[in-house]
């Protein structure tokens, strides 16, 4: 699997996701600078976490207008898989690749903590290593992860199975207790209609090694390798 990770001024988890991908594939991803609209053909594009452009204006809003994102939109339309994590999720929603938006956490504070996620479907190139209904533990680290979409969009997301992950309690119960940021319907991650674009707030890249946060996030990367190699 050949992959590219975009780097914006202010990105800061590009190294974490590169480390995770290299651990799983044995192959170092290509780092692509934000001004570089013309990068090598790859099997997967990752938009990493961080504070692109200092979160000025609105999280992800400026990065969404960068030259490299114009190219990403073009390739996504051709079916190239795109994974947006945290600030990357904010960027791909701002770029219109995914519906909805990420608002300020309901408690108004940054939150870094392990959360539990319920995997909603195994039927995607991102989640095929998990079982539907499986509970995994991965961390979140954000101040704007409160997912919101209008009622029509929410209905479509539910009907078309576009919800990838929901925050839940350790036993899998989806209710307010497991929700770290006030997200609508506990949404932690969503797909586009074709399930070739995934955006999620949690950081599976920080849960790939036993001594450094556990291994529950590894399945996401292993699943992509299997689907894309």
């Amino acid at each position, binding site marked *: 699997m050949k992959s590219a990770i975009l780097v914006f*001024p*202010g990105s*800061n*988890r590009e*190294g*974490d996701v590169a*480390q*995770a991908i290299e651990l799983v594939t044995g192959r170092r991803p290509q780092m692509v600078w934000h001004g570089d609209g013309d990068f090598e053909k790859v099997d997967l594009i990752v938009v990493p976490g*961080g*504070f692109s*452009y*200092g*979160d*000025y204006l609105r999280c992800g809003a400026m990065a969404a207008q960068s030259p490299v994102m114009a190219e990403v939109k073009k390739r996504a339309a051709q079916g190239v898989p795109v994974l947006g994590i945290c600030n990357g999720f904010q960027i791909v929603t701002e770029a219109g690749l995914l519906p909805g938006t990420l608002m300020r956490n309901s408690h108004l*504070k*940054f*939150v*870094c*903590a392990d959360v539990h996620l319920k995997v909603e479907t195994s039927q995607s190139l991102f989640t095929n290593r998990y079982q539907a209904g499986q509970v995994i533990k991965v*961390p979140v*680290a954000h*101040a704007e992860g409160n997912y919101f979409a209008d009622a029509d969009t929410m209905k479509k997301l539910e009907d078309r199975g576009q919800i990838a992950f929901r925050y839940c309690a350790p036993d899998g119960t989806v209710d307010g207790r497991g929700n770290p940021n006030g997200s609508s319907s506990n949404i932690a991650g969503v797909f586009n209609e074709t399930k070739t674009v995934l955006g999620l707030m949690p*950081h599976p*890249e*920080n849960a*790939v*090694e036993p*001594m*450094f*946060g556990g291994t529950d996030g590894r399945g996401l990367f292993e699943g992509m390798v299997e689907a894309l190699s």
Partner: protein
Amino acid sequence: MTVAQEKNPPVKLPNEPAITPQIVAEHGLAPDEYQRLLKIMGRDPTMVELGIFSAMWSEHCSYKSSKVWLKKLPTKAPWVIQGPGENAGVIDIGDGQAAIFKMESHNHPSYIEPYQGAATGVGGILRDVFTMGARPVANLNALRFGDPKNARTRHLVSGVVAGIAGYGNCMGIPTVGGETNFHPAYNGNILVNAMTVGVASTDKIFYAAAAGVGNPMVYVGSKTGRDGIHGATMSSTEFNEDSESKRPTVQVGDPFVEKLLLEACLELMATDAIIAIQDMGAAGLTSSSFEMAAKGGLGLVMELDKVPMRETGMNPYELMLSESQERMLMVLKPGREEEARKIFEKWELDFAVIGHLTDTERMVLTWHGDVVGNIPIPPLVTEAPMYERPWKLTPLPAELDAAKVPAPADWKASLLTLMSSPDLASKAWIWHQYDHLIMGNTAIRPQGGDAALVRVPGASKEAGHKGAGHKGLAMTSDCTPRYVQAHPETGGRQAVAEAWRNITAVGARPLAVTDNMNFGNPQKPEIMGQFAGAIMGMAEACTALDFPVVSGNVSLYNETEGRPILPTPTIGAVGVIDDIATSAGSRLVKDGLALVLVGDTKGWLGQSIYLRELHGREEGAPPPVDLAVERRNGDFVRGQIVGRKVAACHDLSDGGLLVALAEMCLSGSMGATIKLPQGAIAPHAYLYGEDQGRYLIAADDGGALVEAAQKAGVPAVLLGYSGGSDITVEGLLSVPLQELRDAHEAWLPSYMNSAA
């Protein structure tokens, strides 16, 4: 610039006021200090020259009251690469790698403007570390706030924590540890001490000493604005009711720009274009340029009109004294300017050649071609005021007889009260706001062990790491201010010993410390005596434990209207472990583990948390620290941990044995039952006494551990086993873990959420 011009007296700028005694006083210079200035200059100074002297001779920059004492600290060891005097300390951690670290205070600004004050404190310490060529791998912070009942405390906690989070999270550096205390003595002066640890190659460390006459001086980073002018002077005086009006002297940070600056600097450092580099911290362009030239024994010419400016109409005085953040000064090899410029422009940062080095040992400042300042550099440093201030040691208070301290009327209530008291209550509300996981290297998280443990990047086997697994850096910050207040020598000794113990308790070898000395007004002999006493105790402990001081910072005048803070010499410490798989945390996660108390328990209740929280008394001598015993017990415990005989380990500090056990149980969600040994001292002294040099260890084989301890001459006793969902002390109390957790975890969030 001709030689003749360099000797000319400077021209006065339009509207420049004459220097009056009042203006001198406003610059914080004492009359005799001004006489010293006149002798060096041989003439009246211009305003910009006066401002430069004022900043360079401020307590903050000159250490004029503390220097004679700081020299007494041990600073050398075979693994020390760079001790105090540079931007940060540097130690060898093996495999061609160095750890670079320092702790620094941002107390005064954080009280005036908590968010920006704390944020720029983090920004400043990060720059100190990456200036030297290190990529920061972790941040810590030590915070002291006033009485929770004080009207301002909640606002300060909220702003300081958000400021630290806002800066560190955006930079992408995990904030992995620290401590937070509350005491009425900090009502008017909170303490915000921030520490950064970075990693570099031992052959790629950058220093500040300028070299090479004619070489370009380059300014990079943010533009200079009018913020923070005279910050260093402001931090060198006591507070009074006018302090609010000093808000404009607080700097404003932009972590986004600092992140770009970090990446750009590290990119340029990978080449060999840099000769010297220094960040612009306190006293901005003034102190950075002076230090670089002075350390190199050179002079310099700076064309101030070439400094990138944020606003129009700025003058040389403002440019030299601004403390605008996210700026660096460097000396480049000749001809490398364009290569460097390209890197900084790629990162969308300012880059300007603003001067060059000379052999005159003078700092010559020009403004559109006119000389506006001309100061000889060596005397400004060598003839700086240095004070041997009168000092009076605090006498050792009488030992408190534990028999005269009542046992708790209700044992269960006593534990609940302690665990929900402000100092011992869970600080999760704070550290959940810090990204402590970014970089994917955090092995021991907050509340997971006595020290944070972070994998060292680039220390893989392939990269030459000799150990079997992942090399780790352990780090902690410690001080028990109430002990230092009661007896500074004992308190200074204890702060170092506790830091050493915390590094040991995760299985790492303690290597070196950074000290952040926070005290009141040094012109009072009692305060100077606290400083002197703390240094004596620290020096003794650092020597006995082979734990040298490699960097540090002094913050004096922490007084408001004559009321000083508790003397607080915060110790930041770093240690190394060859294989993280052999480390131990403090979480009790398995049942049936033997619980073994290591170290001698005499039941010391003087200055204990029990005495203060249950009986409202802050009395007696603090617990003595026997450094030989400390070392013997610690070396034994570390050996057991890396020998994989230990499932969990926690040092005994505030609150003693029962609080340590409760913390292990809560963090691991596992109950425990213990029984006091036959013939033990009074139960409340045994359970809540704060005797030093002790650890509580959970082990699969308790008998073997006790036996090994006996062989090593270390006191150890089996107290009980983990298991169940209650904490039980036979015959005294049994508390359901959930009830204890509710009390422990609720205090801070409910305090922060309650209306002011």
